């Protein structure tokens, strides 16, 4: 793993105007962090803490209100076209196009990137096979189970061979057994293909299972706790787990007081 930062946030804030005109809502508050090439970073936080807003800023789907967000040295929102084929996203839902077969869904990114059709189809088929979906190429999404659909969406993200993979709670809607299998599969694929991955989750165990590093977010999004787990021994993992629970517990208590 190189130490070159591939994603860098420097005092990034995102403020939304409330639709009813009752002032502003701060989703991300002076967030700073760096993610290096080849790292798998799990971002952990409670629902509504701004994880997905941070995710959308990295993906270039929303613009930071202030601060500097850089992905491979470029602004992901303003230099939108620069990132063609460089970022792959696995969303919370599978987000498959219902009118496309499993194969055509995996082909989508490749077609958008104008890949040679023969090569694109071979790549898409190979990814479906790697994810255990050989024989389901012609199935429409409605004919697939939740786990299979999420596998198709993982194949779609990997097929374009992106440098960075962004995952927004991709397995949260699946049963624990399926989610565990897919998590293992996902980590294996990221490592094998030497990708950088940002994995958003609200589950402590999932974050600790996947992440080389875990970032715990406050609400609004800024880092409340950070720990490196790659190569860590059991004692450190236990300690990190307890610390994360403490931070999240304190967050919940603060939120409760604020609500009260």
């Amino acid at each position, binding site marked *: 793993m190189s130490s070159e930062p591939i994603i860098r946030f420097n005092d990034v804030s995102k403020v939304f105007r409330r639709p009813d005109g009752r002032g502003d809502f701060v989703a991300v508050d002076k967030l700073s962090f760096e993610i290096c090439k080849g790292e798998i970073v799990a971002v952990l936080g409670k629902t509504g803490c701004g994880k997905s807003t941070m995710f959308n800023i990295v*993906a270039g*789907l929303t613009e930071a209100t202030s601060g500097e967000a850089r992905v491979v040295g470029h602004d992901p929102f303003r230099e*939108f*076209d620069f*990132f*063609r*084929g460089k*970022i*792959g*996203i696995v*969303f919370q*839902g599978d*987000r498959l*196009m*219902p*009118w*496309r*077969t499993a194969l055509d869904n995996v082909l*989508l*990114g490749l*077609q*958008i*990137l104008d890949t040679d059709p023969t090569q694109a189809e071979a790549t898409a088929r190979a990814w479906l096979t790697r994810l255990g979906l050989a024989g389901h190429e012609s199935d*429409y*999404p*409605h*004919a697939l189970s939740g786990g299979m659909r999420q596998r198709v969406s993982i194949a779609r993200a990997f097929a*374009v061979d992106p440098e960075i993979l962004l995952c927004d709670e991709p397995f949260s809607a699946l049963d624990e057994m399926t989610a565990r299998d897919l998590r293992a599969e996902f980590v294996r694929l990221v490592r094998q293909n030497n990708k950088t991955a940002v994995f958003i989750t609200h589950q402590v165990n999932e974050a600790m299972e996947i992440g080389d590093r875990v970032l715990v977010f406050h609400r609004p999004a800024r880092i409340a706790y950070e720990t490196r787990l790659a190569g860590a021994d059991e004692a450190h993992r236990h300690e990190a787990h307890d610390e994360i629970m403490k931070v999240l517990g304190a967050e919940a208590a603060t939120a409760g007081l604020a609500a009260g």
Partner: protein
Amino acid sequence: MIGSRTVRALQAAAGMIVLAALWQIMSMIFPPFLFPPVPQIITRTVEVLITGSLLVDVLLTAWRIFGGLFGAFILGGVLALVIGQSRTMENYITPVLTFFQGIPALSWVVFAIIWFHGIEFRVLFIMVMTTLPAFTFQILDAFRSMSKDLFEMTMSFRPRRWTLFRFLIVPTILPGILTAWKVNLGNAARVVVVAELVGATGGVGYQLLRQQQLFDMAGAMAWTLQLVLFVLVVQQTINAIEAWVLRYRAVSERAM
């Protein structure tokens, strides 16, 4: 065992047979210039279909319907895309279309006769003006119902405008477009007859006017049936296209 499709077809046929039987009973009670017998209507209908000089009028009306609908579809599609992308344009265009929607078809016929000379242009103008608002609003609705999730997912691959249009927007609005065609087809068939009644020298509407002048009820029914048959054939064609295009949709085994 009879399939549900066959049952539906039989039920539809039964309804039509009852209607024909009632008409036949009426023809026995009233004079033929009011209620001509069913066989006479069928004979006249077939006569129109197999007589080249008469079939031309049916085809002329069909051509006018398609021309008007196609014009309104293209114009409505462009307007829907413009409105869909700009709130300001929506504020300008929507009230005008709503105003147009409130103008009766007959008023457009009068305007067309006063403004234009050419018969074909008059009919085209009337057809476009009467179906344009519906096409625009239906395509706009389909465009607006596009899933934000799918939009973001597609945008994450950084598509070019045309690619986004081809891969996401067209498949999303296609069901809405097909519905718009089905709905507007019926409206167009009604409007074209009014337009032809008043200002044309050919077509089903013109022939209906002639039957009225001749006091020929069998002829009036035969020409009306031409239009009904035309609408049914086109509706079935659109249904078949829709079934093929939307074949990806899951169907519950339990019938509604």
